[in-house]
Every structure is written in structure tokens, then in C-alpha cells.
């Protein structure tokens, strides 16, 4: 029971801190999970990566974390805690926003939060990269993926699946 409460509070906090989207809270989530819930960096990166294959919003992988820690109940608690607080906040902010209309401060806050959230996303990239790039082959796979996704119109799902298959082949035969 206390595990569920702990999970729910942790993910609710992450939810309202997720300025600029889910990637911004990745490093915080990663360290929280390893320190307090015993999910190590490798496991976290695996779960995160699997999540990237799914359609829909890109942080649904929190469900798997909940499932790993406390089964289906854990999955639902984590899903609710991660998506409800920010959604409720956004809901009321949307209504306030409509009432107050355009104000110079609104623009200022939006401009100010944008580079902060990009900085946090960069930290997310760093956290994921540090845990997933473990040698020459993975570095090459990451670079090729980066290039393909940035420069071509290929669907990222194919890149990720291809990297999984090709990477497994390389690691099997180059060892």
C-alpha cells in the first residue's frame, strides 16, 4: 500500500514539473526510480526505449514502470498520477487564459520557459545517451539514427526497430 502511495506522489510531482513535456523529467525520473524504487538505469532505458515504439503520447512507458513495481494496479496508479495533475492544471489554465486574453507577460513567460525546457530536454538526451551508448556499436547506431531521423522523412519506428535488429546482428557476429 505504501508503495502505491509513494509511486503516486512521485509521479504526480513529476507530472507538474514536466515543463516542456516528458523528456524534461527523464533525468529526474531516472534518478528517482533508481534511488527509491530499485529500477536501475539499464532497465529504465530499456523501458523508455520500448515506449518509443508505441503510438500516442511518448511517455506512456510510465505504465511499464508501474507494472514492473506493482502489477496492473501499479500501472494504473502511475498512469493517473503522471497524466492527471498536469492535465487538470492545463484545463484550468486554459479557462483562465481565455478570460484574461493576450497580455505581454504571457508572451514573456512563454519565451522564458522555452529555452529552459530545451535545456531540460538536453539533459534528458544526456541521461538516455549515457545509459544507452555503451560502446562503439551503440554509438554508431545512435549517430545513424540521429542522422536518419533529422535528415530523412523515415518513420522513427522503423529506425528504432531496424537498430534493434541490426544491432543484435552486429553484436552477435563482431564479438
Amino acid at each position, binding site marked *: 500500500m505504501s508503495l502505491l502511495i509513494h509511486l503516486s506522489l512521485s509521479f504526480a510531482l513529476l507530472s507538474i514539473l514536466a515543463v516542456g513535456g516528458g523528456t524534461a523529467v527523464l533525468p529526474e525520473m531516472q534518478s528517482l526510480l533508481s534511488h527509491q524504487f530499485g529500477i536501475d538505469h539499464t532497465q529504465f532505458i530499456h523501458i523508455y526505449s520500448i515506449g518509443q515504439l508505441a*503510438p500516442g503520447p511518448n511517455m506512456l512507458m510510465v505504465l511499464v514502470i508501474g507494472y514492473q513495481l506493482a502489477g496492473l494496479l501499479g500501472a494504473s496508479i502511475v498512469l493517473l498520477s503522471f497524466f492527471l495533475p498536469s492535465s487538470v492544471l492545463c484545463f484550468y489554465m486554459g479557462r483562465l487564459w481565455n478570460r484574461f486574453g493576450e497580455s505581454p507577460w504571457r508572451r514573456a513567460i512563454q519565451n522564458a520557459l522555452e529555452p529552459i525546457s*530545451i535545456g531540460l530536454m538536453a539533459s534528458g538526451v544526456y541521461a538516455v545517451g549515457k545509459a544507452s551508448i555503451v560502446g562503439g556499436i551503440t554509438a554508431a547506431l545512435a549517430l545513424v539514427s540521429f542522422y536518419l531521423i533529422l535528415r530523412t522523412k523515415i518513420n522513427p519506428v522503423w529506425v528504432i526497430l531496424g537498430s534493434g535488429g541490426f544491432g543484435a546482428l552486429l553484436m552477435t557476429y563482431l564479438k
Partner: protein
Amino acid sequence: MSLDADQLVPHTQAPKLGDIFIQFLIIGAISFGGGIIAYERILLVDKRKWLSSDEFMAYLAISQTMPGLNSVNMAVLAGDSLRGALGAIVATIGLILPGSLFVLGVGVLYSTASDHPLANLILIGIAAAASGLLAAVTYRIGEDNWRQIKSLLIIVATFLLMSVVKLSLPLVLLIMAPIAIYIYRPGKGA
């Protein structure tokens, strides 16, 4: 996009809750590989004309400023504007339902097969590509910001506090938000 009868008559009344749910459910089911905001724009502005282009941009700004995932926030705001609180709820549930089932299915597999040597090798490759994907997405979102010295400084400072000094996220926001808002305060020119 096919031209159905729906598009030929202007919407004089609010869309049905079931319709909102189904439309967001479709986005939630087909948006493999991201880009959900684009799908939402196609639905809301082009396909159903539920929002004007201006309204969409205003909601996008709120979605990006508020915490939470942009695509989910957009569903909340659009749903609310169409059918109030219930609209927001059905839009959000529709959007996350298909992916949740997918992730849960794969998650159950992962829980049972993560010790398998081949599964492990595949996961290593998948994780490497995911970090490449994340880097590409971040690079693209930040595109205009990398070139301006003001925003670049804030980006770098935030990154250093988070990843090098390793402060906690609330602390980083407490430090950086006032500084950034001061830098971008009204009257200073954007």
C-alpha cells in the same frame, strides 16, 4: 483525407462526445513515431474545422507553457473548448488509450523476457536508436533557440545545473525560471 458528408455541412452545433472520443482514439492509434501535434492539427483545423488556425496556435502556446505533454494538453484544451470538461476527458482518454494498451502488452513481454540473451541484444540496439531519436527531436524543437545568444545561455545554464551540478528538477526550475522571465520581461523586446 476522404470527403465525407460531415465536411460539407458547416458545424452549427457542438460535436458529439462519442465523435470527439473516436477521432482522438484514431490519432492515439496511428501516431507511431511521434508527431502527434501534427495529427491533432489536421483533425482539429483541417478535417473537422473544430478550431480555427488561430485558436489552435493559442492552445498550442498554452500546451507548451504548461507542464505535461504537449499532445495531451492539446487534447484537454480542444476537448474543453468543444464540449467542456467531459469533452476534455474523452479526448484525453481517447488519445492515450491505444498507446497504453500497446505499451502494457509490450511491458508484460519485457517483464518475462528481459533475461533472454537475444532480447537483451535487441534492446541494446533499440535503446541506442531511441537516444538518437531523442537527440534529433530535441535538436529540431530547439532549432530557433540554438542561434540566439540569450536563449542559448539559458539552455546551457539549465543543462549544467541539471546534468553536471545535478540539482533536483524543482530546484533547477526555481533558479532558472525567475532569471529567464527577468531576461524576457515585457518591454525589453522579444
